[in-house]
């Protein structure tokens, strides 16, 4: 198709669109919703008191670091879908992720045994909590991000997964007993990083151009944004 024809085609029957609200405000809205949802989930598992009582200062430092990481990753995900915005929040989210892992390592016993850590089968419950409990959060986040996400699908998906993983990890830690931070480091850190990796690899399928809304000229163009000739 000729470029002038394409322009005429795009202008014909143009539908109005609502500009996205500022990234920070959207990130805050999702974070508040996620906090309420995870709070209900934790209360539903009715184990909050057991956890808070038995945990030391290291536990709470890790939780605070995870919450900060989740909030920064959420902001980075929302900023990544708006072209032209400064991308500093990505750096801060990565720094927060490193710090979170650092707090877990720092709070781990010096003489821990990796065999024991890897054999901690009760951690599968946490993995289930993060994956199953985090799935609705990821779904909502994907819907909120879909309009600009095809521009940077891998980055957007990775930060979205980091945000969900971080906050769901806090929910899991609040719901179940975690006596040893080495176990938390290996299992929770592992599953969050795995989530980020999978999201980065599959992001372009989820946030494909063909799935993006506000494309009203599908008849004339291929799904990947490439004009049909």
């Amino acid at each position, binding site marked *: *198709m000729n*470029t002038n024809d*394409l*322009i*005429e085609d*795009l*202008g*014909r*029957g*143009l*539908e*109005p*669109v*609502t*500009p*996205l609200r*500022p990234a920070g405000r959207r990130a805050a809205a999702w974070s508040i919703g996620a906090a309420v949802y995870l709070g209900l989930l934790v209360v539903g598992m009715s184990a909050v008191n057991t956890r808070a009582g038995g945990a030391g200062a290291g536990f709470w430092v890790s939780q605070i670091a995870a919450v900060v990481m989740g909030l920064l990753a959420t902001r980075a995900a929302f900023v990544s*879908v*708006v*072209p*032209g915005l400064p991308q500093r929040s990505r750096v801060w989210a990565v720094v927060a992720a490193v710090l979170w892992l650092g707090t877990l390592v720092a709070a781990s016993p010096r003489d821990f045994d990796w065999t024991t850590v890897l054999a901690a089968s009760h951690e599968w419950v946490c993995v289930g909590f993060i994956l199953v409990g985090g799935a609705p959060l990821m779904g909502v986040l994907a819907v909120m991000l879909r*309009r*600009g996400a*095809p*521009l*940077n699908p891998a980055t957007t998906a990775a930060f979205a997964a980091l945000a969900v993983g971080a906050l769901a990890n806090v929910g899991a830690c609040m719901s179940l007993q975690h006596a040893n931070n080495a176990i938390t480091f290996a299992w929770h850190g592992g599953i969050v990083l795995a989530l980020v990796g999978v999201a980065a690899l599959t992001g372009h399928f989820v946030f494909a*151009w063909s799935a*993006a809304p*506000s*494309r009203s*000229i599908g008849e004339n*163009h291929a799904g990947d*944004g*490439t*004009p049909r000739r």
Partner: protein
Amino acid sequence: MTDALLPSDSLGELMRAAQQGDGASYRELLKTITPRVRQIIKRQRGFAGIAEVEDLLQDVLLSVHTVRSTYDPARPFVPWLLAIVRNRLVDGARRYARISRREIHVDEEDVTFSEPATNDDIGEVEDAAALHAAVRALPEGQRQAIELLKLKELSLKEAAEVSGTSVGALKVATHRAMATLRRTLSKTRE
């Protein structure tokens, strides 16, 4: 990647109108940015042909269309546009690399009609004469198979009916005949 020549304020106004559904403003916006985007693509992809540049340009325009709701009217238009151009150029480069990896480069070989020897009438006659001689020298069954299938260009079924042999026997005879002819003609050339 910056572009001082694009008037960000007026483009922002046009995009604001486009977000409200004003098709005329949208067309004007796209027509204004098209030559500049084309120029940027040409500058960034110096090796690209005209068709590839137009492909990338149309990709950019479609992307602008798809993500037009992400433009914040309170912010300048040009950085928003240039970020989209940059993204699409990176995508285009990745696509190009992916396609190149799958393609096999074939060196230009001397094909039939570009080589003088293949257009040499004398050579052709000599080859034809050698071929006739070689065919005549074939055993009866093989010669008949070649005549029916290769010279008269009958189908296997028709040739089988004419010769009174089976299709399988004809295939075997043809295969053997071709092998014999190849040997004989290569000896003749030497």
